[in-house]
């Protein structure tokens, strides 16, 4: 029996800054919302809403996903992370780029500030994509589907950000012979279906069965999911660019939906064949996230046939604050405590009693966060559908409370200090 290289966890410096910064950006986002809740009722292409969307998409979701991906790529690909230095570069570039971009959108400084911010983010995306490629490419064959999802997501990210940068340039120096809003629609869906969806699928099909102690042998449905999601996206982009105002986008939406259902079928199979019956709060967060995603699909025909912009805002909220946020809120406490624990207690394991990873954060606060999140999200969605300003005000305050609880708990893990002697841990 040969000794097999079990691999090394990536350096924590390549991972932890992303978690901390993402939690801060979520807090900033909810602060924006609480200060100006009525911005949610204006057209989505307005300075403040653009600043919000990019805080959510880049500062919160992409920041967190970069960090989680650097930690999980070695697990998924059974290969050490290619470069910690590149990971750090992507962190510095993304953080700087997002800060510049948010300020530019908030004040609508088109021109150099927006272009510089976009350029930093493009460089960050390139660093990330190169790191993913170098780590995932040597994967063994049995992980082909996971590998394809991760690589295709990284490629779509680079394309999304490139188009975003071109749009920023186009705002100041118009050169694209197309309606700007139609291009924004393509840019947004490129990011949602290409980057977020495919990355989440690639990671979740490994992690969710692992957390549930479940398994599924239906790998073929993942290949179907990969083809359907990419086919739907490519057709949507090509047709959407050539013939901007057509209703065929619904057909492409159905293709992507079928790809999502195939992914859901795989996860449901793993869920059925799980050994761990008890579902904890972080996993409940993850399951609810799928509901928000499906609700967003149901809104697609409404957006096609109704002219009110509130449906577009609702769609964005379902995806960013519903689907992606619920998923990240849940996954944070399934990954972050383990990373910090590994750094602090690895050498002490077996020598003395050490705390378990779940003792590094407050489980009670995760429960509080869970209920606050659901109430805040439900009230926000209701407030937008019925244009109830007082409800928007109330819900955004709850969002701020929720993100404060989350930020506190993340900081508690990041700055973990032993509060009692090691031999007292049980």
């Amino acid at each position, binding site marked *: *029996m*040969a000794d097999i290289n079990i*691999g090394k966890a990536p350096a924590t410096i390549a991972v932890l800054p992303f978690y901390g910064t993402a939690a801060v950006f979520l807090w900033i986002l909810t602060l924006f919302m609480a200060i100006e809740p009525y911005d949610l009722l204006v057209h989505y292409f307005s300075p403040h809403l653009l600043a919000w969307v990019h805080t959510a998409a880049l500062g919160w979701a992409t920041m967190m996903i970069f960090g989680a991906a650097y930690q999980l790529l070695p*697990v998924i690909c059974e*290969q050490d992370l290619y470069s910690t230095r590149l990971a750090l570069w992507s962190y510095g570039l993304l953080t700087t780029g997002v800060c510049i971009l948010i300020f530019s959108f908030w004040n609508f400084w088109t021109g150099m500030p927006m272009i510089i911010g976009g350029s930093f983010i493009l460089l960050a995306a390139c660093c990330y994509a190169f790191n993913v490629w170098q780590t995932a490419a040597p994967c063994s064959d049995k992980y082909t589907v996971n590998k394809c999802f991760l690589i295709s997501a990284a490629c779509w990210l680079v394309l999304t950000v490139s188009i975003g940068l071109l749009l920023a340039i186009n705002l100041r120096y118009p050169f694209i012979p197309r309606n700007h809003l139609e291009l924004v629609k393509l840019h947004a869906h490129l990011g949602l279906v290409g980057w977020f969806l495919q990355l989440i699928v690639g990671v979740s099909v490994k992690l969710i069965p692992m957390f549930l102690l479940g398994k599924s042998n239906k790998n073929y449905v993942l290949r179907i999911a990969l083809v359907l999601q990419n086919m739907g996206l490519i057709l949507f982009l090509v047709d959407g660019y050539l013939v901007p105002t057509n209703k065929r986008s619904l057909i492409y939406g159905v293709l992507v939906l079928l790809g999502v259902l195939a992914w859901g079928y795989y996860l449901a199979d793993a869920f059925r064949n799980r050994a761990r019956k008890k579902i904890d709060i972080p996993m409940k967060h993850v399951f609810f996230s799928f509901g928000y995603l499906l609700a967003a699909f149901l809104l697609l025909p409404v957006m096609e046939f109704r002219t009110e912009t509130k449906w577009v805002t609702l769609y964005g909220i379902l995806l960013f604050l519903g689907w992606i946020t619920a998923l990240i809120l849940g996954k944070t406490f399934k990954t972050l405590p*383990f990373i910090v*624990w590994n750094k602090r207690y690895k050498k002490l*394991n*077996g020598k003395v009693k050490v705390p378990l990873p779940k003792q590094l954060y407050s489980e009670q606060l995760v429960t509080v966060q869970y209920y606050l999140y659901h109430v805040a999200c439900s009230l926000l969605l209701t407030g937008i559908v019925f244009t109830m300003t007082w409800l928007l005000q109330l819900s955004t305050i709850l969002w701020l409370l929720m993100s404060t609880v989350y930020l506190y708990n993340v900081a508690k893990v990041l700055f973990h200090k032993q509060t009692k002697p090691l031999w007292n841990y049980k």
Partner: protein
Amino acid sequence: MSDPLFHEKMKAQIALSDVIDPELGVNIIDLGLVYEVDFPNVDQIIVNMTLSTPHCPLGEAIKEGVTNVLTAIFPYRNVKINVVWEPIWNFDMISDAGREQLGLSPR
């Protein structure tokens, strides 16, 4: 009991029960991660074991734990750990005590 190394193996088994898989919160003996402990000569211990997930980031911590507990009770022996993927670990390898701690459905 006829095994001349029975007592050493029992001591090793008890010591390894102090190594917890941090992800599952259960010791590696009850999880069935340890396949074999061998004493091939007077100054060595060989542990053949597996991990619940290949390339698990916590794998190093578990290996470290195994080395720590065995070095503590067998200070004059060198600990060698072989991480193997055959046979593949599965839920059936978890002991009844481990299943109870994990809240798994009974066998």
